[in-house]
């Protein structure tokens, strides 16, 4: 089991929790942490499930349900806002046919807002999974999405 392999790398102490959750979610194919997995992590660290859930629900990185294969995060910061002549989120919504916080029917894309990703000098910016895209224009967004769609 993937989780077992990850768990054994960490000492059985509470302060491993955040690192375990990050490492596990990152390694798991569909990138979310299920209730059974929460139970297993809790029992490994000798803490309550509620404790694991409290960490899981505090940090925005963690997901407790399946999302799209690719998660698109649009920067919601002021610099990106003032540096775009168009609405990045609206453009993506139109291209994908979903609203923010929704997932496309084919489970390929989930669209979300994110806090600033530190690319204000190359605004507007967005992130797809671990990759960042800057100086966005409507055409550039179309091209980027097309690329992801080819490798679906």
């Amino acid at each position: 089991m993937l989780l077992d392999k990850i768990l054994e790398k960490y000492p059985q102490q509470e302060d491993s929790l955040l690192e375990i959750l990050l490492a596990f979610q990152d390694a798991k194919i569909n990138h979310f942490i299920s209730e059974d997995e929460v139970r297993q992590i809790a029992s490994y660290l000798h803490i309550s499930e509620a404790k694991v859930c409290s960490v899981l629900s505090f940090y925005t990185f963690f997901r407790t349900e399946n999302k799209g294969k690719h998660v698109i995060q649009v920067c919601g910061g002021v610099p990106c806002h003032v540096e775009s002549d168009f609405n990045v989120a609206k453009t993506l919504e139109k291209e994908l046919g979903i609203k923010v916080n929704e997932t496309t029917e084919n489970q390929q894309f989930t669209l979300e807002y994110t806090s600033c990703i530190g690319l204000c000098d190359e605004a507007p910016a967005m992130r797809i999974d671990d990759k960042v895209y800057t100086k966005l224009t409507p055409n550039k967004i179309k091209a980027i999405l097309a690329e992801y769609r080819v490798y679906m």
Partner: protein
Amino acid sequence: MKETKIISRRFDRINPVSLDDYLKTEGYTGLTKALKMERISIIEEVEASYLRGRGGAGFPTHIKMMGLAKETNLPKYIICNADEGEPGNFKDKALLEKDPFAVIEGMTIMAYATGATHGFIYIRGEYQEAMSIMHECLKKAREEGYLGKGIRNTKFDFDIQIRSGAGSYVCGEEFALIESIEGKPGRTRVKPPFPTEKGVFDKPTVINNVETFANLPVIINVGGKEYAKMGTPTSTGTKLLSLSGNVKKPGVYEIEFGVSIRDVIFDLGGGVKNDRKIKMVQLGGACGPVIPEYMLDMMIDYERFEEFESKTGSGAIIVIDDRFDLFDILLKTVHFFEHESCGKCVPCREGHTQLELLIRKFNKKEATTKDLDSLESLARVMHQTSLCGLGQTSPTSIIASLRFFRDEYIDRIDHPSNL
């Protein structure tokens, strides 16, 4: 006006992950010198330099160092706060990605001076690139004896681990960051005790910003007194600025304290894009004040920022031109804090939601004079009573806008029926 490149001198000139490149450009000369000094003399040099925290609060670095050095409860920890998450700030990212060894060297010098043996770099989860660069550099430093047991053939042991954030802005607050390193939700603790007494794992800890650490090798090399000649008497040295928004050349710039905001925008940033007029400038990021065009001759130093009841000298400058509406900007700012509030204390948890509702009313021109009173009172109460820096500084933009853009508020009051 030109840049004063001190801690950014290596930016884009060396291969950041090459220890050789670093060593060829005076890298680790600070540590080498420090290791031959008395520990207390290092702290005295820092005192003479009057280096102040570069994360925003501007607390004198030597006081923290002295506090940690005095503690006898071992082990002691040094934490580098690289949880740069404030919209409009990206200067720490530049340091981590373009001169990572300087940060490591700075941490090592501080550890040596204070007797700390363990270090953490807490990097925000969004900075994946910075994280992999740092991992590589730590590995190299360890291999070459700049970290680990018996550093540079002395009896000094120190090593650094990376901890990743997971999407929480408030973890940049020192106790929230400590909680996060301990694997918990990032909710601050009640002070006192301060981290120097009881920090991570209840052990003495000093937390500093990335840029603060990067200054240490310079101070040791040139000497504290010499360093203090840069800048102004109370804000010494240089500052990295994150310039963004509607400017021609956004980016990270290094300046001596004391230059004006106008010079930064026009001389370094090339002025406003399409030569439009400046509507306002937000200083320090989301938790900083918004100021009007006529305030741009304001000098950049810690004292000026404090006038705005803002602790923020993190160095972000966001230029917003006259196409934008004040309340759109405030709404985005408040929304950000509402999303990032940890929820621990009442003013911050419930206050941001109410601030947002009030700002929304002004945005939609549905506000009343009573709303103006409520907004002002609420913003002040949040500023005065919130538990940590987030809630204390988040209303700054609103408080400043009530001062500099009051007319716009009055304009948005739905006359006259709601008066």
